[in-house]
């Protein structure tokens, strides 16, 4: 299955509004004063633009390279 999306995807390109940022910040437990919402929204928009660019790559068959070692630490008693 081709799980890639294009940069034209409307959701990927959606610019977060000040209201979006207020709601998300509340969910994340951030204490965000009203006067700081615009600058955080601008940074989030920048991040979302980069995230949208990620969708220009065909990711079929490619998973995230995140390593995890199931072995227990040395010295753990049997």
């Amino acid at each position: 299955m081709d799980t890639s999306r294009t940069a034209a995807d409307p959701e990927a390109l959606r610019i977060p509004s000040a209201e979006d940022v207020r709601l998300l910040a509340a969910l994340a437990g951030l204490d965000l004063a009203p006067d700081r919402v615009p600058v955080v929204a601008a940074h989030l928009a920048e991040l979302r633009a980069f995230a949208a660019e990620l969708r220009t790559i065909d990711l079929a068959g490619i998973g995230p390279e995140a390593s995890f070692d199931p072995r227990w630490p040395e010295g753990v008693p049997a």
Partner: protein
Amino acid sequence: MTIGPANDDLTALTLREAGALFRRGALSPVELTSAALDRAAATEPVLHAFVAVMRDEALAAARRAEAELRAGTDRGPLHGIPVGVKDIFDIAGMPTGCGSRARDRCAPAATDAGAVAAVRRAGAVIVGKTVTQEFAAGVVSAPARNPWDPSRIPGGSSGGSAAAVAAGSCLAALGSDTGGSIRIPAAAVGIVGLKSTYGLLSTRGVFPLAWSFDTVGPLARTVEDAALLLNALVVEGDATTEIGRAVRGRRVGIPRPFFFDRLQPGVRTAVETALGVFADLGAELVETPWPEASAARAAAFVINRVESVAVHQATLQDAAELIGPELRSRLEAGSLLPAADYLCALRVRAAAKRAIARLFADHRLAALLTPTLPGTAVPADRLAVTYDDGDEAVGLAFTRLTMPFNATGQPVLALPCGFDAAGLPVGLQLAGRPFGEAALSRLGHAYEQAAGWHRHRPRVETGDERRE
């Protein structure tokens, strides 16, 4: 007043030159360290490269090195060499301030970072802790300034280390590179910086920025000096083994789309001229577009931001007011990004690595060559790179060409390749195969010796700057 290098300036010595003089008894580590400390004392009112100059400790270490060398104990090329350390590395007994008010009350480090312990074992003399952008997250490095023009930034985040090396306040320095933080200041101040292969060197005792990108590495005035410092940091291997070998027939890829798209004219001219030098040396230049470069940069950007949030989550919740306003806003925005975007970035990173491996294999490349920065150092009071068609914020501009290689984890050697019309340094970067630092040093050294840009040093003045 002008503070510049004289013909007999000890701080103009390379590591090998200084070492040879030590071993002949013609120079002592105390004399060299004193010269570096004197340079720091003279230039610090202008450059602000150091958080702390460790004069007494450095002179004591230099005396020990001198006694050891006289007694026949030789620790190698770093023995007795003055070195600076970025203030995100732990030095036992000193606070690791990370350029942040959030660290104002931090306890002194109990032990040295792995890299600091390694350079001490190699006999280096630590002269001080150098200025970093707050938590190594940015390219400005205030209050540090550029030795070529103190009205301009030195780049970052290892800006203090770079400025100190360029000024001669130390012969080499430790820095870190998560999005370009060694290469960016190296280019901005006209020295050499080596981003090591991800995972090659210990980051123990180094304050993290983004775990899956954090690397440490050397800043120095020559490729060989950088390789010698790298050698002190690695568990095994020798980055100098290929230095001096010919580069005839070595294939160097030029990925013009993305990397040459938007450059200041002075940068374009200097890098194109450098390509001619490589060709004259017999290197085969190959046009090799890397279509995934822009997405690789996007992946690096997203991963960097999200992991930074995880690093600072507790401070963000409990004492956010202690984090500087710019970084705080970026962290807050990063904490609002969907987790799916982070995972997508990890997948793109894997795809970018496969693509670059294929590119190197298909074209039998020794390295890719690109500009390090799209523009030269910007004024501290106007943080934007200006092109013919408009401006770009310096934080985005200076990381644009460096971050793709943080995504792929390759080693990258940044070195000077000339000056723009205003006399500001221009740099190029050579990206190699994983763990191929020796091969990069071969290419970089050959170019450096042919071009000779490493022989130019700034004269630090209280007013205008100019090249010697």
